[in-house]
């Protein structure tokens, strides 16, 4: 899932100006992240109105990253959008751009920061799980990704900085290399750590399009 965080509210207020503004959320990732679901869209609406900013209307797109769905769903809001100065999108960076493709004459504002591809570990807790590198490494050591979960993306870890299972850059983060070590030890596959992993082919992360 794409993990997002709402931008600072004052920052959004500055970008929206006096309005009117139309708000678009997303039914999928942003709903689960509580950044762009119906509740969040309505909360944003009332917060903006409290600042005397006119909100012309709102919608929760299903999902925001689907160009043709967006076009269809937004059609019925045409008049409200027409009178708006801007559209505030509460979805991931992809959702913002898809809405932007439809309304190239409007100011399309991102109300969130897109952080990473991750899992919902428990309600309201999200952990990074993938950097979309295009060359999946999960078949080497098992289901623990060193590219996304090691801040140095080491393929021959761990570095010398981990302490009591935690990462040197933040003692709240588990060191994925220690997790890999424990996992391989449990599976009786520690020999895998003897092999030197070759430099990674990062060019796979440059894919710009995939067509079926």
């Amino acid at each position, binding site marked *: 899932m794409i993990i997002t965080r709402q931008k600072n509210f004052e920052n959004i207020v500055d970008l929206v100006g006096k309005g009117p503004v139309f708000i678009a959320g997303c039914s999928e990732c942003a709903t689960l992240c509580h950044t762009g679901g119906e509740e969040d869209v309505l909360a944003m609406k009332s917060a903006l109105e409290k600042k005397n900013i006119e909100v012309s209307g709102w919608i929760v797109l299903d999902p925001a990253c689907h160009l043709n769905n967006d076009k269809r769903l937004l059609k019925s809001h045409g008049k409200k959008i027409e009178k708006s100065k801007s559209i505030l999108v509460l979805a991931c960076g992809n959702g913002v751009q898809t809405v932007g493709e439809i309304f190239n004459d409007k100011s399309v504002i991102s109300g969130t920061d897109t952080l990473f591809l991750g899992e919902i570990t428990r309600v309201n807790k999200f952990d990074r799980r993938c950097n979309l590198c295009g060359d999946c490494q999960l078949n080497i050591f098992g289901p623990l990704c060193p590219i996304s979960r090691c801040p140095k993306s080491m393929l021959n870890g761990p570095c010398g900085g981990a*302490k009591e299972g935690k990462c040197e850059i933040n003692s709240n983060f588990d060191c994925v290399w220690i997790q890999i070590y424990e996992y391989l030890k449990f599976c009786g596959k520690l020999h895998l750590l003897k092999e030197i992993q070759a430099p990674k082919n990062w060019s796979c992360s440059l894919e710009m399009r995939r067509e079926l």
Partner: protein
Amino acid sequence: MDFISNLEKVLSEGSFALTAEIGPPKGSDPNKIIKKAEILKGYADAFNITDNQTAVVRMSSIAGCSILLNMGMEPIMQLTCRDRNRIALQSEVLGASALGIRNILFLTGDHQSLGNHPDSKGVFDIDSLQLIQIVKKMRNDGVFQNGEVIPYGKPNIFIGAAANPFADPLGLRVERLSKKIAAGADFIQTQSVYNFDRFIEWIDEVRSNGLDKKVHILAGVTPLKSSKMAYRMKFHVPGVDIPDKAYERIINAKDPKKEGYLLALETLQKLKKIKGIHGVHITALFWEDIIPSLVKESKIHKIPSL
């Protein structure tokens, strides 16, 4: 026999080697490095010049090494994967070799978020192990990482790597050393030793695997200059392991600076007696001028110039 560097010669002949670290200045003034170097000249076999250590911007390692070469001192360049991709790293190795730099210590590097430009983007295209393997192939086989032949001169480098006997998971530390040797490390400089129990456990395992015969190991020593430094090293520097006993000895001392000196002196003398240790590496952070008296008083090393 031809040796790549003086450091290789000293180690290969079985002498107890001594290397010392010189931190380049936060600025372009060469005199800062020249002054430190003048104090240390003759007291070590080779001198490490750090590469933006702890991710704080300083004069580049290659420039510092060039200054040392001009002074007739042998440098050990340090090169981290944090700030450069494989193109820049290989280029730096060629450049270093062209300047006459013969020793390089290859590191993955402290993460940029711990330094003074935490907003920067780290590179980490490859890790230190991969870099060591690449440089070995450049030197021995004359090929770049992509397999292309190096047409105008292979780099001639004595390859160094770091080892931390104190980091988690302990069960993997010797395995990692072995992996660095397999990648191509010729010499090892360890994390600073304060925890002797752990260090001896590690070196015993190193010896029983025969690794001390395959690589030259220099044990790290960092004198603690003050209680404040002891506190910072114990609690805030990644990878450092100062046991409570050593820590309390410094912070409870009447004169912590003197106690720190004595602790370093004892450490050097103890390390020299450990089988499998081929030398020591002194990192006297912001206290480089203490090195000459440490070397003289500990009598661990012949001082060629005296």
